[in-house]
């Protein structure tokens, strides 16, 4: 069985696209071949910066002949019917076979679809693959219309077996297939003719091309660690960089270079980032001190001076880069030691968002909020405010301008240099966290306060200007911010009513946006104070506005009605994010809904505590059965209330009870009510539900024994009032009507 070798040779393919392209080539080719009837024994794809290679072995030489049998008309059927059948089958009458069937003699046609030679199928599948290749970005070149990631120069496509190799003929926009390729661009230029995969791989290696990216990566890593080790150093591992570098070379040559002494005092992260981002260098560290002292660069060739010229050039470029970094670092340190005021002032000229003002204004709001949040998370309010005021100062620093990814981290260095308390310095770095869903959540109180304030200010701000995420559009990463708040609150077991912070911060945004309406600003300032003291927007508004003498500014009238809606909508957004978050942890959405429906749902820690207890309870037999009992009681009661137009909430009286089960239920309710209430009071939801479980048997027995809708109206109403007690007791723990099942 023949083997197939394909190589698509082009100008340099971006490193980040190579691996995926190899997989796509393999998948599309093998899928296409198999679909056309060509099965194979094995396939593997290899990539270099200039080629995608696919080797398929044990391919069928031709697709198998397929025989199809068709049943036709009866023998003796009208000629028209038989002719029609013959046309459809593409046969003549003498090719038909007569066969006896239980229904008499019938014509059968045996149609043979001959197999096709592998080469024909390969040519078709390869052309379709090339023309529809899923590059993340592709381009045209010259005067052609073919698209490829970069200009495609040649197609090698050969089928080989013991007898020899044959080119699979193919012509795509003037690129004809052949049996030749090229060696290394500089070390072994020129055409190479190949007869099969082994020949190809051997000749390429001789022509300074290592085909397998894994082999290149291994060689780079081996050589890099060996050279570092020989110097008593270690390479800082970076798998992403290794894969990228392996995709930039066909013939890797590892060179170890020194970093000029004058740069060794730079923070390790600065050295690492500068070397990686700009030069794609690995950092080489002294394991004893943790300092980065040298670098590894990977060249794409050998030279007669063993890379000395190349290394010298790279070193020079690095020195120029690091000279910039050092210049930034030293300037920045000077500003930091002077107290960073220049930076914080500069932030008033930096727009955060055209409707939400400058970074400086934003920092003011965050600082106020961080102060308010501080006691809730156990932080010192002064420290939290101080941290919030400097946490974003590094955005004005030269280093962060150059390397935005170092924001926060530089803030920590600069805060330390400024002699600020350690908690403040930590908050500078940590207040951005958590970023991704797997990012660690800060636990230090000051960091938590600033991080929460930062995210809540962003969220309330975009809610205030009505720029909420829609569908897949979330340009300001508000979903991530909300998830961050959720994880911060839950991760630190923080007990806070978010509503109050929403309202306060929304007011701050309103104040910022009220322009020169000083009257409204004063009123809103008073409301903020009220919220600070009492925590509820509605009453804060009333308290302030009721004492106001004269015509209310129009703005205030609007605010009074719109702000609570905005706040509620934002809380709904948090609940949606929370549902996604908890669903990933295995909590059912209806269970969450049942808990969200309860009062105090802006206290996320409480909400989740409740949901976890309910989830556990619903998994138990007691929970499941109690839910049935509750639903039955609730349905009967709801129907009766609708029918009668009254609410049966007076409480039943055991003296009107007729049946023993009824009396037992009254007693059970009386017995458990206290325990449930005090458990709820103590937020011990598991205990509350445990006590509720004790009601399961009496409720079941009650429904077993009695008809609620008794002929005697007194008895009926008393029973309905009893059901209401069940509803009320159960309703303390969650809104069970929302639980499915």
């Amino acid at each position, binding site marked *: 069985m023949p083997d197939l070798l394909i190589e698509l040779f082009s*100008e*340099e393919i*971006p*490193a*980040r696209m190579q691996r995926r392209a190899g997989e796509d080539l393999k998948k599309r080719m093998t899928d296409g071949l198999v679909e056309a009837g060509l099965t194979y024994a094995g396939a593997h794809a290899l990539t270099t*910066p200039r080629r995608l290679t696919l080797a398929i072995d044990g391919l069928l030489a031709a697709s198998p002949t397929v025989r199809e049998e068709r049943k036709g008309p009866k023998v003796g059927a009208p000629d028209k019917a038989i002719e029609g059948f013959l046309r459809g089958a593409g046969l003549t009458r003498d090719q038909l076979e007569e066969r006896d069937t239980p229904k008499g003699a019938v014509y059968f046609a045996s149609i043979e679809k001959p197999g096709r030679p592998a080469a024909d199928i390969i040519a078709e599948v390869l052309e379709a693959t090339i023309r529809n290749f899923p590059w993340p*970005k*592709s*381009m*045209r*070149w*010259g*005067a052609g219309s073919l698209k490829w*990631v*970069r*200009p495609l*120069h040649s197609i090698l496509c050969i089928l080989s077996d013991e007898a020899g190799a044959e080119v699979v003929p193919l012509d795509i926009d003037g690129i004809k297939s052949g049996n030749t390729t090229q060696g290394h661009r*500089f070390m072994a230029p020129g055409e190479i003719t190949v007869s099969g995969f082994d020949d190809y791989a051997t000749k390429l290696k001789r022509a300074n091309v290592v085909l397998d990216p894994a082999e290149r990566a291994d060689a780079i890593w081996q050589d890099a660690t060996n050279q570092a080790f020989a110097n008593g150093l270690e390479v800082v591992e970076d798998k992403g960089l290794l894969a990228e570098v392996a995709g*930039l*070379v066909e013939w890797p040559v590892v060179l170890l270079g020194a970093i000029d002494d004058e740069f060794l005092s730079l923070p390790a992260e600065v050295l690492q980032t500068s070397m990686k981002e700009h*030069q*794609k260098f690995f950092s080489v560290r002294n394991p004893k001190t943790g300092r980065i002292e040298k670098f590894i*660069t990977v*060249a*794409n*060739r050998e*030279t*007669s*001076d063993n890379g000395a*010229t*190349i290394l*010298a*050039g*790279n070193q*020079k*470029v*690095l020195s*120029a880069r690091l*000279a910039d970094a050092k210049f930034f670092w030293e300037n920045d340190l000077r500003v930091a030691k002077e107290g960073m005021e220049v930076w914080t002032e500069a932030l008033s*000229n*930096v*727009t955060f*968002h*055209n409707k939400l003002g400058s970074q400086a204004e934003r920092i003011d709001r965050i600082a106020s909020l961080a102060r308010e949040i501080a006691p809730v998370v156990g932080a010192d309010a002064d420290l939290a405010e101080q941290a919030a005021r400097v946490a974003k100062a590094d955005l004005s620093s030269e280093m962060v301008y150059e390397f935005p990814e170092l924001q926060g981290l530089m803030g920590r260095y600069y805060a330390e240099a400024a002699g600020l308390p350690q908690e403040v310095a930590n908050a500078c770095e940590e207040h951005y966290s958590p970023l991704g869903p797997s990012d660690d959540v800060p636990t230090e109180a000051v960091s938590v306060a600033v991080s929460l304030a930062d995210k809540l200010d962003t969220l309330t701000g975009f809610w205030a200007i009505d720029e909420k995420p829609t569908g897949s559009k979330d340009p300001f990463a508000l979903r991530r911010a909300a998830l961050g708040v959720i994880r911060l609150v839950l991760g630190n077991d923080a007990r806070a009513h978010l509503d109050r912070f929403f309202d306060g911060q929304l007011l701050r945004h309103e104040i910022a946006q009220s322009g020169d309406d000083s009257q409204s600003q004063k009123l809103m300032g008073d409301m903020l104070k009220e919220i600070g003291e009492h925590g509820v927007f509605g009453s804060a508004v009333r308290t302030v506005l009721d004492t106001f003498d004269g015509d209310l500014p129009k703005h205030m009238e609007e605010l009074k009605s719109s702000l609570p809606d905005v706040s509620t909508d934002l809380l709904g957004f948090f609940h949606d994010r929370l549902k996604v978050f908890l669903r990933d942890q295995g909590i059912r959405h209806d269970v969450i809904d049942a808990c969200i429906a309860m009062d105090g749902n802006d206290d996320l820690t409480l909400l989740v505590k409740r949901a976890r207890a309910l989830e556990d309870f619903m998994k138990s037999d007691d929970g499941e059965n109690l839910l049935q009992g509750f639903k039955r009681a609730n349905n009967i009661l709801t129907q009766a209330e609708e029918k009668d137009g009254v609410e049966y909430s007076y409480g039943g009286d055991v003296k009107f009870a007729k049946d023993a089960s009824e009396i037992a239920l009254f007693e059970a309710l009386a017995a458990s009510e206290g325990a449930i209430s005090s458990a709820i009071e103590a937020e011990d939801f598991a205990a509350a539900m445990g006590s509720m479980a004790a009601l399961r048997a009496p409720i079941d027995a009650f429904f077993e024994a009695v008809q609620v809708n008794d002929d005697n109206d007194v008895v009926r109403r008393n029973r309905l009032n009893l059901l209401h007690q069940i509803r009320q007791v159960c309703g303390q723990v969650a809104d069970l009507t929302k639980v499915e099942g």
Partner: protein
Amino acid sequence: MTQTNGAPRSFQEIILRLQSYWASKGCAMLQPYDMEVGAGTFHPATTLRSLGSKPWAAAYVQPSRRPTDGRYGENPNRLQHFYQYQVLIKPSPPDLQELYLGSLAAIGINMDMHDIRFVEDDWESPTLGAWGLGWEVWCDGMEVSQFTYFQQVGGHDCTPVSGELTYGLERLAMYVLGIDHVMDMPFNDPDAPIALKYGDIYKQAEEDYARWNFDVANTDVLLKQFEEAEAECQAILDLPHEDPKTGKRILMVHPAYDQCIKASHLFNLLDARGVISVTERQAYIGRVRALAKRCSDAFVQTEAGGWAV
């Protein structure tokens, strides 16, 4: 053909070698455009000529200005006024990479000793509404050129595709000549009777412009000029395509495009003065892009743009 008669000795020798190399490859040797531009791409020989179906091959030096990069002549590598060498060939020839490598050899880079790499770098000019795919070319880890296959300019698909090469001349020359500070680079032959260094010619100008760009330029005037350039560009393109005097079809794309270039540079100056906020930035860029787009729309309706009556 590839004249590597030893290493070059001066900045101008490198330019001269590039000129003679690309002339030998059949490019028309154009002169710099006589306006302030941010990059060689703004020259109509690139922006406009990359549009339409007519073949084109040109090379030129373009003095370029980026006001925000001014460092008073003190930074060894950064200048607010610098030179780019620009090559544009349409359709891009199949051996463009080899042609390019030949030019490096021509300026004295020994291919056997250096590590040349094509590293992904897709090019995009938001102000020109243009993009292309290609690489930055590294020599021993240093970016020496930008290599781009134009896909779109002014919102128009490029058919055929132009291949564009841009050399940052100062950086490339410093590397080839082994100079650490741009101001120390020999401009003419270091053995000439009057030997001039780059700094002798440009140090003072860099100081002058840096101060003016950052602190002095009258932003009210610049803003007004921006508005005027924008309005004039649009007014020109709004006129009928027929010259009422002669009845000839004349679209006046070039004068309109001059106004677009002007607006772009004025925006850069305003940016350097720090009076454009992050959000306004996008709006300004959008306004310049709108002009570039209109100029491109007009150019493809002209003879040079491949328009057929």
